[in-house]
């Protein structure tokens, strides 16, 4: 079975991720998921692709710590975090978060907390590829 926190170049399947999450416990009454996708428009410009680069070893370690912290903080039964690196086309999936708990409230809260913390703590950078050129993005709204 794939690792619950990982970085990969290839796309992911949310069905496969949710199936893996559910396989961890039959007590799971609520699963909240978040999928971040590549927009084709940013800051008034058309975006054709986004290139992601990670400090692999640290990013993976931080994602593992975030997952453990979320499980502890929200009393989750399990959680999964997948982030892609390399070239991602407009409209494609970038990041997947899933939080599974006995009830919906902690699942929702953990899912939001995980994506917010990921943006602040995981060393990954994105470069937008536009018809006018390429530019590294520094803000994370």
């Amino acid at each position, binding site marked *: 079975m794939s690792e619950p926190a990982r970085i990969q170049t290839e796309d992911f399947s949310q069905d496969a991720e949710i199936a893996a999450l559910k396989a961890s416990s039959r007590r799971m009454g609520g699963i909240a998921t978040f999928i971040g996708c590549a927009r084709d428009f940013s800051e008034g410009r058309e975006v054709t692709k986004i290139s992601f*680069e990670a*400090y692999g070893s640290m990013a993976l370690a931080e994602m593992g710590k975030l997952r453990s912290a979320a499980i502890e903080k929200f009393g989750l039964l399990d959680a999964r975090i997948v982030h892609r690196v390399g070239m991602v086309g407009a409209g494609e999936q970038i990041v997947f978060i899933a939080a599974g708990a006995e009830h919906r409230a902690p699942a929702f809260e953990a899912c939001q907390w995980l994506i917010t913390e*990921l943006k602040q703590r*995981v060393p990954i950078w*994105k*470069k937008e590829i536009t018809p006018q050129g390429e530019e*590294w993005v*520094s803000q*994370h709204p």
Partner: protein
Amino acid sequence: MDPGKIWGAGRVIRVLFFGPVAERMKAREMEVEFATGMTVHDVIARVGAQQPNVFSIVSFIAVNQNQVHDKQMALKDNDEIALMAKFSGG
């Protein structure tokens, strides 16, 4: 002493650059010769000597994959330092 290690060889600090910092440094890594008592600040000074304008975009520093805030932190032989721009994943 570690018998597998050649004494005096490979005494370096690896400095890693990613994304926008790598672009500005025109390199993905550099090696700084390790000296006893060396601090994070000393390594930063070496990087700055090569590319002074890189620091306007460096927001985080990690030593061996852990973020550090104290630039006076002492380094060890073979430590890995990363100078990182603000993250933009997700």
